[in-house]
């Protein structure tokens, strides 16, 4: 009987102690980041979708449409087309389109890029009303960024007539 | 590191030439055993007696035949055992779910993924795939219909 009463009292006390904890938290300041009004600083390595790095020298991107990223991508997110720029031997991307709705944000594309042309954006405000909203034109995005920075806008190279074989690669199963 | 006790009991069932010691650092297992599926209930019983648990049960589709792969390990000592049991396509293997109740689900999974039937299994029906699914996706010749 004494044990029973003792247990009851201890139990009752434990409840009061619990109430003490919650009331202490009740008067603590809130931890919420009230999102649209205030925003979290994104971690420097946050992986959003990929975008082009703006080369400080040229004010443009570095992509030479080698399609390594498209081949490495596990989910066929990336489609790149490039043309040889007149005069040089280098290819240059004409279109660089992500189907973001397939992406798993693994970052393999950024790692394999031989020219280090890609980086992750910190964009997360991508909610849209249709599936098509998830298709991201990276070059258009670059142009917008350039506009914002006051840089000359990227002009996709015009393919030379004889070399206009715009091959579109829907990156294969890893095997090309 | 190999446990000395499991070897004799397995040798008694399988025969000495069926056991090979493996390089643990390279394969993650200590002993490899070859068995025919019919020996598996006996092997499982012997392993349970040694207080080994069934870590995994799966199959391999070797295109012309199949192979059941059992992994056993122990809570009490570092010893991992892998048992390979080759099986012809279309043949049935005996169940070990009466020895290890945990094998019940593993066998059901192998059944639906590879189409291997387990004789004596109490409840052999699809586990993960929808109940009416009649394909075996982990077979090499499987092509998704949609």
């Amino acid at each position, binding site marked *: 009987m004494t044990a029973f009463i003792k247990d*009851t009292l201890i139990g009752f006390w434990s*409840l009061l102690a*619990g*109430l003490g*904890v*919650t*009331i202490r*938290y*009740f008067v*603590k*300041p*809130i*931890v*919420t980041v*009230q999102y649209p009004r205030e925003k979290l600083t994104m971690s420097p390595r946050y992986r959003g979708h990929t975008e082009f790095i703006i080369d400080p020298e040229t004010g443009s991107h570095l992509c030479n449409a080698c399609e390594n990223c498209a081949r490495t991508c596990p989910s066929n997110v990336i489609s790149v087309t490039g043309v040889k720029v007149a005069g040089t031997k280098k290819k240059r991307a004409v279109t660089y389109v992500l189907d973001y709705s397939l992406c798993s944000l693994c970052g393999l594309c950024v790692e394999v890029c031989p020219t280090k042309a890609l980086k992750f954006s910190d964009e997360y405000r991508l909610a849209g009303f249709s599936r098509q909203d998830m298709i991201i034109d990276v070059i258009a995005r670059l142009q917008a960024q350039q506009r914002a920075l006051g840089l000359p806008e990227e002009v996709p190279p015009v393919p030379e007539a004889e070399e206009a074989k715009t091959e579109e690669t829907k990156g294969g199963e890893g095997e090309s | 590191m190999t446990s000395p006790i499991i070897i004799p009991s397995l040798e008694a069932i399988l025969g000495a030439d069926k056991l090979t010691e493996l390089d643990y650092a390279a394969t993650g297992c200590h002993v490899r055993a070859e068995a025919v599926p019919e020996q598996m209930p006996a092997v499982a019983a012997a392993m349970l007696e040694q207080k080994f648990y069934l870590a995994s049960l799966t199959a391999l589709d070797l295109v012309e035949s199949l192979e059941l792969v059992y992994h056993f390990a122990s809570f009490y000592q570092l010893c991992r055992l892998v048992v390979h049991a080759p099986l012809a396509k279309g043949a049935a293997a005996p169940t070990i779910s009466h020895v290890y109740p945990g094998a019940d689900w593993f066998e059901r999974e192998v059944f639906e993924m590879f189409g291997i039937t387990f004789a004596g299994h109490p409840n052999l029906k699809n586990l993960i795939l929808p109940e009416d699914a009649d394909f075996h996706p982990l077979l090499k010749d499987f092509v998704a219909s949609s």
Partner: protein
Amino acid sequence: MQFLLAEGARIGISLIGVIGLVSINALFLIWMERKVSAHIQLRPGPMEVGFHGALQTIADALKLIGKELITPEDADKLIYLLAPIVMFLPVLVSFIVIPFSPTLLIRDLNVGILLIFAFSTMAVLAILMAGWSSNNKYSLLGAIRSVAQTIAYEIPLLITAMSVIIMVGSLKLTDIVAYQATVWNVLFQPLAFILFIICGTAETNRAPFDIPEAESELVAGFHTEYSGMRFAIFFLAEYTNMFIVSAVATVLFLGGWRGPILPPLVWFLLKVYAIIFLMMWFRWTFPRLRFDQLITLGWKILIPLSLANLILTALAIKIF
């Protein structure tokens, strides 16, 4: 005729007052619940709808009016439709006898407190109707649990109320308030007060006694199948019941509208909302009891304790 007019006007005014109180109380309580829970959990709660979410519950209520009412095909439709109404029937009646202030009282019935208890049992029937008629297993389990729980806690609730009544010698709520002119009953009856709060929490199906609607077990308990406004009426009744239980506790133990400086009505509401805050505080602190433990707690601990308290009170009255 004059008499009829006078009484009619009185009824009309009191009805408007009560309905207004019920609505505003529910709107306020839900907002308060969300704010209290939020601040306990280190978050702000409703913020964006009105100033600090002040209009949040109004939005919720209007939204619920604009929601479709689905009646399951296999349900017992008549009872299914009646249940929310029966649930709400007794809610207004209790306000007839609650003395908000010396003057603000609709009707001072001489069975006052008994009326509240009697009509609150109708809610049990409504819960059973709702749970049974839905033809949903979760609803049925929830309803049965709810009823078993309510009947287990009704008894100690009545008995603890008795230990006050034996001191006062009247069932009228005004008499009970009048009795506490100098000292509140809670000082004489601390145990009864604690028991009353526990049982009141259980009677209103609030956590940690919210087993009938235990989300993690029974989805939404007896009102699993109820959508839109029907569900809202259950909610409304629940929050109004909270108010009633707290008001009764205030009258029985905390001296009703008595208090210095502030007007009586303010004191009354302050005490009521303090008790409601306590209930909310419980809800956001404790895990839920298991059903059998709840029943056991009611029958094995609360009823004996309340009976003992009653006898002790009687003894004390005899001695002093």
